[in-house]
């Protein structure tokens, strides 16, 4: 975007400068040519008058010499009429008249063709430098007879004016180029602003802000384009919003249903736990039914708990609560609570800063899963640090699942073996993975090379403060 703008501005400036250059050079050439030709015409006319009308036969006889010329006062008359310097050659080896010291020396630079024109009795002219000033030398003689006149007309004023002209043209050109650059910058920005705005809006939409729109400011192509863009963004936004709303409604429904189930379930669970005390006293069949009722109530309770937990995770309302604790001690406590037969492998105390409950839920659900589906094999939980992560691995030596089904283990209500209905809610692994991801980590399953399943959870944890550094804080 920026490169395009710069290229566009440079092109505009280049065009303007080129135009100014051509115009300036053209007008300078035109003015200087016409000024010079006017100057030459005037000088020729004056010289002709000086020679023919002033230096007449009676004022300056054809055979006059230097003394006669000086006596005639013609030098002063000619010099008053613009010919500032004067050189008169009387021929025949007579001393010439020279109005200034420098004049005679300039004649050595006179073009031979001028003398031929002079000899032919016509007026000739040539540009010469006299004391560093450009001069027009007009040479002529009377048609009949007389000395050769070389009359110098200084053109200093004219060349100075021409110099000022090209200087002004140069300055004007520079100013024009600056103005052009400024204007080009403004114009290209104006032209490209809609493009830049569209770029920003598009990246905002790509970044998830579906409410980004373009201002429709003109009725030109950009305006039409902005309208199309906005229509596209609006339809995208409304369809995403629709999807999101449907999803939210579904999640809210699950959360609401689970919540509404709680109250009757609370009564059921409490009743079942009281009923248990009477089971022994019940006659055979009633006792067995009571047992089943208590067990099923417990299953229902676990299912509703898990549904509520996964709704909270879905809604993102399960904010972590970081604390500092010994992960190894926590793991030992969870194993004692959930799967007392499991072996715990830890390198020693594992002080970490993390969400205690998240880790407890992940490890607990993995242990539940291993003890339910591990076919009664030895379950091993191992914890270790790996850089900034706490790695929790729970492994069993059970039947495992086919490699293609590993990822499906994390599907909600997925049952690896359709014939065997599990005793769990079918949500444990999904919950464990949601917790791992909500905590910034992940949970994966893989088959062990020597049989069985292995789950590896990684949770980023922080370093707890070193022992002994007891910072005092409030809460």
């Amino acid at each position, binding site marked *: 975007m920026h490169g395009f703008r710069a290229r566009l501005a440079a092109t505009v400036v280049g065009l303007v400068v080129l135009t100014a250059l051509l115009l300036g050079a053209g007008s300078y050439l035109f003015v200087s040519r016409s000024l010079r030709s006017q100057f030459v015409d005037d000088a020729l006319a004056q010289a002709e008058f000086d020679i023919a009308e002033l230096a007449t036969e009676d004022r300056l006889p054809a055979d006059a010499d230097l003394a006669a010329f000086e006596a005639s006062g013609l030098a002063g008359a000619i010099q008053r009429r613009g010919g500032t310097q004067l050189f008169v050659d009387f021929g025949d080896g007579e001393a010439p008249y020279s109005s200034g010291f420098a004049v005679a020396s300039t004649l050595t630079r006179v073009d031979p063709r001028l003398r031929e024109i002079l000899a032919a009795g016509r007026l000739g002219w040539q540009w010469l430098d006299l004391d560093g000033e450009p001069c027009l030398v007009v040479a002529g003689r009377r048609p009949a007879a007389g000395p050769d006149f070389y009359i110098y007309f200084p053109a200093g004023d004219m060349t100075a004016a021409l110099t000022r002209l090209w200087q002004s043209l140069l300055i004007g050109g520079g100013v024009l180029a600056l103005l052009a650059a400024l204007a080009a910058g403004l114009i290209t920005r104006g032209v490209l602003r809609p493009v830049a705005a569209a770029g920003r809006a598009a990246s905002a939409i790509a970044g998830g802000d579906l409410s980004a729109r373009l201002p429709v400011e003109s009725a030109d192509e950009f305006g039409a384009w902005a309208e199309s863009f906005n229509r596209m963004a609006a339809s995208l936004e409304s369809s995403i919003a629709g999807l999101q709303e449907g999803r939210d409604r579904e999640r809210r429904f699950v959360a609401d249903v689970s919540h509404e189930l*709680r109250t009757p379930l609370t009564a059921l669970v409490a009743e079942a736990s*009281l009923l248990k005390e009477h089971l022994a006293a019940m006659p055979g069949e009633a006792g067995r039914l009571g047992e089943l009722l208590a067990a099923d109530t417990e299953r229902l309770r676990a299912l509703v708990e898990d549904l509520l937990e996964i709704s*909270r995770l879905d809604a993102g309302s399960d904010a972590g609560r970081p604390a500092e604790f010994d992960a190894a001690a926590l793991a030992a406590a969870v194993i004692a609570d959930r799967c007392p037969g499991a072996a715990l492998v830890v390198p020693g105390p594992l002080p970490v800063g993390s969400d205690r*409950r998240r880790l407890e839920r992940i490890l607990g659900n993995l242990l539940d899963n291993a003890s339910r589906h591990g076919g009664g094999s030895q379950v091993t939980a191992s914890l270790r640090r790996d850089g900034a992560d706490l790695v929790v691995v729970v492994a069993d030596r059970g039947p495992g699942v086919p490699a293609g089904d590993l990822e499906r283990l994390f599907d909600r209500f997925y049952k690896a073996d359709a014939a065997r209905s599990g005793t769990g809610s079918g949500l444990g692994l999904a919950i464990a993975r949601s917790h791992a991801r909500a905590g910034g980590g992940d949970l994966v399953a893989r088959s062990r090379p020597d049989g069985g399943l292995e789950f590896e959870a990684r949770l980023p944890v922080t370093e707890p403060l070193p022992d002994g*550094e007891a910072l005092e804080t409030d*809460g």
Partner: protein
Amino acid sequence: MDALLLLVEDDLSVREVTQLGLQRAGFQVITARDGREGLALFRSRRPDAVVLDIMLPGLDGLEVCKAIRAESAVPVVMLTALSGTVDVVVGLEAGADDYVTKPFKMPELVARVRAALRRATQMTPSEVVNLGPLQIDLQAHAVAGPGGEIALTPTEFRLLVELARRPGQVFTREMLLERVWGYGYLGDSRLVDVAVQRLRAKAEPDPANPTLIRTVRGVGYRAGAG
């Protein structure tokens, strides 16, 4: 004499079975269906402990809890359907001593109520423990500060005594959970944090800069100056 419990719960089945369960555990139980009735019963019968549902029609459990706290240090155990989120903390901050999440198993509730009552009625040797400007009379369950008597709930009192008896020793949240509330390692450490906050608000000269009960970052709490 059997302890008298007040059970405030709006759902008929839950109320009846909970009452039954608590009675079987040896308590006398009076029940109320909503917050207003609960508060009236509390004032007329002065129960030894209150089991209080948080979601009640009309005056809700949090308000009832605050009203009870305003006039009594009686142990309060909340019944909450809202675990895992801030709602538990809100309940604890309203002054509850402990909570049980619905659906609960009867033995769990009974254990919580017994632990709360034990904190309130435990017989202790005649002893006075000092912590800074505080004089803690173990037998009388009374704490005297520079500004006179400080009213603490039994839980807050037990927490203060636990810390004040070994000034300087650092207690982890888990240790305090076990010693004061009777939980194992997997208890909810928010119970400790909220109780410490409430205790500081009552007993510290400047609760924002605690000097009597200090936080040991990453470990837990300890009592004592310096």
